[in-house]
């Protein structure tokens, strides 16, 4: 049996090594000196946007670009950004406003952008870059045949028919303050039965198969450009803007100023239509997101 002194010595050694290991581990960030990490959420549009940003940086800077895609949601991405595990990802202004900043909803895109940019800088030290050009707001979608038959163009038009319709919404839409609850109160919608909670990927299939009659999708969903589906106009401007903006850590720009210019040139380069088409190529035609992104950049001379 070891004496008192070696036991004490061993315990001290153990504590010191624990501290050393932890200290070393906390410098994990230092590893990535000339590397930049791009994050994305876990759906195809995000992976596409992530690829577009990543390939742009690969083309225009000497940095090594790492992809950390398919992070499980807004909160996860935000945490990863704050902790420095990723350097940037593309967020939507409306989501940033309500889900992260917990600010009340606003409708004017310019006001929302300004608000988000200011508060992100103040509260988190994060830089919000100008929009990439499209607004991925919620799209309330019905079948083309119903739209034509009932002469429906706007959500106000459709309100009277909702009691007879079954609705299908994704989980986040039902829970978010800027989602289902506000929609119902703004347009006075009444559904005969509570809305079905459907996986995002199954919404349109269910709609086309007539299992549901109205769904909340996204305005840049690929399938919208390829099927007989109609987006009901948000005539009361309920949905806030969801402009796609790259959000970057301040110290990333400090360490690599060339990144700012490379990203800035992407501003306004992607239209709603173009985003929809790219989404369809990935979701509908099962093409690789990296290839689709590359083609897009080439077509715009951005790589």
């Amino acid at each position, binding site marked *: *049996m*070891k004496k*008192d002194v070696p*036991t*004490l010595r*061993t*315990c001290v050694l*153990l504590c010191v090594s*624990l*501290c050393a*290991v*932890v200290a*070393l*581990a*906390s*410098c*994990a960030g230092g*590893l*990535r000196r000339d*590397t930049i990490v791009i994050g994305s959420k*876990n759906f195809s549009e995000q992976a596409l946007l992530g690829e577009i940003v990543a390939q742009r940086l690969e083309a225009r800077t000497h940095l090594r670009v*790492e992809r*950390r*895609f*398919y*992070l*499980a949601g807004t*909160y*996860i*991405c*935000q*945490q*990863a950004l*704050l*902790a420095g*595990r990723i350097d940037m990802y593309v967020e939507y202004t409306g989501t940033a406003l309500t889900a992260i900043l917990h600010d009340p909803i606003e409708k004017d895109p310019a006001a929302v952008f300004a608000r988000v940019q200011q508060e992100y800088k103040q509260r988190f030290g994060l830089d919000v870059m100008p929009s990439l050009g499209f607004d991925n707001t919620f799209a309330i979608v019905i079948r083309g045949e119903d739209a034509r038959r009932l002469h429906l163009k706007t959500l106000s038009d459709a309100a009277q028919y909702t009691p007879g319709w079954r609705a299908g919404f994704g989980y986040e839409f039902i829970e978010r303050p800027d989602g289902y609850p506000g929609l119902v109160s703004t347009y006075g919608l009444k559904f005969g039965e509570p809305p079905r909670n459907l996986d995002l990927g199954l919404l349109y299939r269910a709609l086309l198969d007539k299992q549901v009659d109205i769904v909340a999708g996204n305005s840049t969903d690929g399938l919208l450009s390829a099927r007989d589906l109609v987006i009901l106009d948000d005539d009361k401007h309920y949905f806030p803007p969801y402009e796609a903006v790259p959000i970057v850590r301040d110290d990333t720009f400090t360490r690599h100023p060339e990144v700012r210019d490379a990203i800035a040139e992407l501003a306004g380069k992607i239209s709603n239509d173009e985003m929809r088409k790219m989404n369809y190529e990935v979701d509908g035609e099962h093409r690789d997101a990296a290839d689709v992104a590359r083609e897009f950049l080439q077509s715009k001379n951005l790589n």
Partner: protein
Amino acid sequence: MADFFIKHWDEILQATLEHVWLVGVAMALAIAMGVPLGILITRRPWLSKPILGSANVAETIPSLALFGFLLPLPWLGVRADRLAIVALTLYALLPIIRNTVTGISEVDPAVREAARAMGMTARQILFQVELPLSVSTVLAGVRVATVLTIGVATIAAAVGAGGLGEFIFRGLAMVNDQLILAGAIPAAALALTADFLLNLLEKRLRPAR
């Protein structure tokens, strides 16, 4: 598979270090709190029920649920790693407290009596007799807690705390086996290594009878 590891070695290393950081801080806190609490229980046995009871409750709550409970709290929910470390610390407490109590209780009563009779103060008895003689048992508790914490830390990625679990969750979302293994294998290796090393230390410190 080996190619994947080689190609992405620095990402994997970074995730491993994040993981070690989470586990390391949590273990340090758990030991700093758990050992004194264990000592306290040996001095005031009536505290055994409330303290061990609470630690047991924390242990019984499924880890993901515990993360979920802590998420809405004001200071904790803001940073996921803070949240994860608090949850991990709570998980690690029970084995450490329990083993501290056991280790100290198992000190030979004759030794304790002799120590007291020779005029050692309570403090001297604690530091010169009870703790040195129970180090091995306490270390066994630390070992169990460490392995447990390494495992639960993989779940912490679900709430954004990073670490090796992030590979696993991303791999699941992308249906990519390589990513999943890139998280799972190092996590398992960490746990096995910690277990092995602490076991060695435990054996070395065990008193001969």
